[in-house]
């Protein structure tokens, strides 16, 4: 798979739901349309919910990889809300 250029990074392994999603949401708001955010998140509940919530907000999930250390790496491309 071709390398994806990452524009910003956020680590949500130190927080719990719903702050996990809030941190991601805030980070995405700082980005321009089309830019990519890398999220480091925990296994378990965050990995089951955060990628889906990001999709439901209209952004594009590009990749999710298992770090093998109990964390995951999620790449999300910002999709600007047309109504905004």
């Amino acid at each position, binding site marked *: 798979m071709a390398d994806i250029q990452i524009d910003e990074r956020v680590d949500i392994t130190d927080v719990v739901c719903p702050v996990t999603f809030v941190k991601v949401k805030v980070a995405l708001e700082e980005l321009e349309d089309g830019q990519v955010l890398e999220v480091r998140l925990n296994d378990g509940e965050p990995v089951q*919910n955060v990628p889906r919530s990001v999709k439901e907000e209209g952004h594009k999930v590009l990749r999710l990889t298992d770090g093998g250390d109990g964390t995951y790496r999620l790449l999300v491309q910002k999709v600007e809300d047309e109504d905004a």
Partner: protein
Amino acid sequence: MAVDYAALKAGGFMRQKQKNRFSLRLKVVGGKVTVEQLRAIADAAEQYGQDYVHLTSRQGVEIPYVRLEEIDQVKETLAQGDVVPGVCGPRVRTVTACQGAAICPSGCIDTYGLAEELDAHYFGRELPHKFKFGVTGCQNNCLKAEENDVGIKGAMSVHWNGEQCIFCGVCEKVCRTKAIRIENGEIKLEENACNHCGRCVKSCPVDAWEGTPGYLVSFGGTFGNHIGKGEELLPLVPDRETLFRVTDAAINFFAQYAKPGERFRFTCDRVGWDKLKERIEEAYHG
């Protein structure tokens, strides 16, 4: 003239221990009450009750302390907000529901719509004993489907669409029955192991899983003096039409075989679960 308590009970008037007072049960479908209805209920409770309502265990609303001689006035006040009395006694009771797919991210089915349809078909139907329907949107089972004589639980038959998939592994992770495995760039679904919970569909970040809503139905639940969990006797019911054939078969079985005052579960125990299963399988296959 003697008071016909059975008739009052059928009309939702529950006799209180206090002489000549009744707790008036109101009709609620699927736990949904509009603002207009709430206003009328508040008016009635203020004028004819004691300034409060009781929320029942099955999503009902009751106005306690209504006087027998004020029945007509209280009904009139309620009618202004489109509220009518509910039922008690040996008949189909309040159809309960969670908020389902209309509101809840976990919901697999339109619980409100189904509760309304069940209500339209069966509410108040006279039977040998009480008969309860409950509708829950998914396997989280917030509405406790198996407590009901007929419980309906939202589910999904699922299908993997390879083109969208980014092989992130979330579906494999969320699957509680280990029916999903990633193997050689393919996702394998073991159909026999799938419990139709739809968690793969709900959690997929790229919509690579498609889910078609269906129903899991349980029969013979009871949670009063005797406690028994409803039995799931059928595979996933794929559509509303089939579902109503099945619920018709179940309620008709009860109407035909139950003794007065006997709950569905005990009719099945006495007449035979196999016999019920035969009937509902017949209905299932049309």
